[in-house]
């Protein structure tokens, strides 16, 4: 039987600078990607329907040449047509039109009916509502992050360990966004939920580590390795659940669950790196050099 052996990292071999270099490089790269995205596309990520406005139709694939029909059925060219074989549907997306965004949903569903396509779901999001949602979402994530930061500072009441948790949580948020951009995953409400979930999840292992090092007696390296053993198990377990959710849900075309799954998997990966490289080295610096001052 295969057993999970949590690897023991020999931290003594590396200097703090070396340990911090990797997560910092990843963070800077991610920020660069997001920044570049913003410069090129005008938005920090690929915004989904909920944030741009538009109409999404799910059209049943009842045999025959549905894809061909979709091409010709609509007066406007669809912005994307996605096939989900497991569910026998095509997902057709139209971005909001500048002129008369209103009657789009009505028109499209009529056009689909006329072409003999059966529509199983229609989502319509108005552009004004979409921009409102985007603002609300950014506000929500910022508020959650701020709340988490305040709580962490209240829990540990020392600057360096607290800022270590906050910094790695920040990186845990930024890295998945960059990865989403690269993989072409759109930012939707589901991904916002996932990002907030990351704030909740990723802080767990950081708190565990800080607690082990700061509040427990014993050697620094021993504390770290104990916390690592537990923390890595936790993260891997959650990751297993999320990867399975992402794979199964994308087979079935349940976008919300798929997006949450992918983002959390990536976020948890980033968390492994940030907790055991960034956070550990900050803690070590604090423990061996910081306190002396």
């Amino acid at each position: 039987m295969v057993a999970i052996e949590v690897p023991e990292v020999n931290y003594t071999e590396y200097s703090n600078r070396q340990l911090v270099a990797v997560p910092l490089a990843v963070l800077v790269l991610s920020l660069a990607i997001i920044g570049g995205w913003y410069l090129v596309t005008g938005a920090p990520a690929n915004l989904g329907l909920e944030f741009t406005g538009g109409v999404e139709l799910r059209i049943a694939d009842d045999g025959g040449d549905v894809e061909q029909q979709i091409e010709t059925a609509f007066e406007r060219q669809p912005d994307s047509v996605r096939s989900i074989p497991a569910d026998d549907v095509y997902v057709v997306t139209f971005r909001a039109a500048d002129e008369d965004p209103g009657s789009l949903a009505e028109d499209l569903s009529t056009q689909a009916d006329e072409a003999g396509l059966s529509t199983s779901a229609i989502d319509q999001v108005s552009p004004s509502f979409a921009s409102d949602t985007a603002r609300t979402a950014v506000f929500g994530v910022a508020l959650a992050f701020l709340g988490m930061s305040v709580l962490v500072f209240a829990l540990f009441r020392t600057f360096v360990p607290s800022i270590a948790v906050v910094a790695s949580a920040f990186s845990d948020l930024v890295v998945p966004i960059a990865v989403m951009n690269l993989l072409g995953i759109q930012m939707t409400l589901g991904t916002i939920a996932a990002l907030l979930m990351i704030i909740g999840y990723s802080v767990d292992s950081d708190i565990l580590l800080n607690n082990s090092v700061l509040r427990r007696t014993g050697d620094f390296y021993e504390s770290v390795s104990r916390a690592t053993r537990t923390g890595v198990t936790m993260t891997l377990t959650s990751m297993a659940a999320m990867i399975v959710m992402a794979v199964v849900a994308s087979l079935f075309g349940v976008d919300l669950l798929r997006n949450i799954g992918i983002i959390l998997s990536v976020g948890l990966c980033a968390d492994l790196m940030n907790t055991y490289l960034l956070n550990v080295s900050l803690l070590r610096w604090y423990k061996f050099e910081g306190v002396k001052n």
Partner: protein
Amino acid sequence: MLEPIKNNWRILLLVVVVLGATVALFAPQFGPETAPGEDVSEAQQGVTNLQYGLDLAGGTRVRAPLVGYTATEVDFGGDQPDDVASAIAGELENASESDITAVPEENAVDVTEPSVTEAQFRAAMDASGYAYEDVRSGVTQETRDVAQGIIQDKIDQTGLSGGTVQQVQSLSGEYFILVEVPGENRSSVTSLLEERGTVQIDIAYPTDNGTAVEEEVLTQDDFAELGSAAQSDRGTGAYVPVTVRNTAPEGEQSPAHSFQQAVADREFAEEYNSDLDQCDYSENPDDVSKPCLLLTVDGEVVNSFGMDAELADNMASGSWATDGGFRLTTSEFSEAERIAINLRAGALPADLDISGQGTSRSISASQGENYKNYSLVTGVLAVFAVAGMVFLRYREPAVALPMIVTALAEVYALLGFAALLSYPVELAVIAGFIAVVGTGVDDLVIIADEVMSEGEVNSRKVFNSRFRRAFWVIGAAAATTIIAMSPLMVLSLGDLSGFAIFTILGVLIGVLITRPAYGDILRRLLTVR
């Protein structure tokens, strides 16, 4: 006797919660609210009391603002609201008094006629002489409340169970009406909502120059009692039985009497003597041969009919008004139903801007059914993945098995909560469940590792001190999750409040009930050796 209970109260508490969840899930007393004429087993979706939301049951959700402009901080100067409204309406060419609502409690006045622009309204406010602070788009709270009530009535009238109407506020302070109707498609919901539905009865009568129409012989407000739509007992067609109000303030004629008078004046009794006499408005509307009653909805004639000879005679003799009973007939049942809805629910005080600033989501029942199955499969597989990881890590069933059972108990308790609160289960809620399994197992791992670290656990004291240490971390982690999720609970971000609510509930159930219970189970397994 009491000792075992005292020692294992945490486990007992978990058992009680699980039993409670079972009762909430399966006992018919906790069944969903039933629509009129429906029994509990019909209202249940599947074997449990769980209610499924839009995503999983199919249906339509529409979120749209009410159209209008509101003047804020209006100084009424002690005038009656009606006078204020008519003074402002007098300054507007394209609006009548009924389009203006003055609300003294809010110090606000709104205009709901869609053709009035903001500039026109400002000009009218200035001209009316009432001081005001500003004009914003949207309507007053009063108008929103009335609209919400009317929409709820409209939905209830259709006999659909589970339809809801709420007011939600966006971050920018704009108000939206959020309507959810399970099991209906988009077009039927939007037409139900957009229909402003003014129903009235006119009389068309022959003159030398073709048809003339006497309008508003009866309007919505004139009906004292409204029956529900019924199938006609002879022939095809359907009807709505109504009773016209026959009381009036002193010195005025009651609607029943004035209607009777109008019918008598137009000589219905003379023209309709047998069943052979029929109204011919539908054949030649411009040149009728006999007087006809016209049933109009939103200014459109939906049906025209003559009158039963006996009824016409009663009206001519003046005996009808004491009773006032009357049938609005239509050719199709669905039309009768629509008229009943419009009569009962009346008109919305303002237009819902569904196509412009509205957002809607519609899912067919079969798609919902698919989503239900898929998410079930996804959830089960995710649990298997977690279980697999835990077994791989501990390789000791005594530690791993209770871990998985406890995590599942947590989800089960959450399902019980959902049934108890009649909270509709949606995809987002299921994502919340999966997230709960994830965090739940995380915490159990912390407990297990902490308790089993540093050698054998041979006394209860050692166990308790380690367990308490583990609990600090769990509590801190739970607090961060709750803080991170709480903005989602209150911000209006679509389905995500369900996700947040159930994640937070799950974390709370976990910290307060299941994790302590797991500690007790683990202690028994590790110390009883």
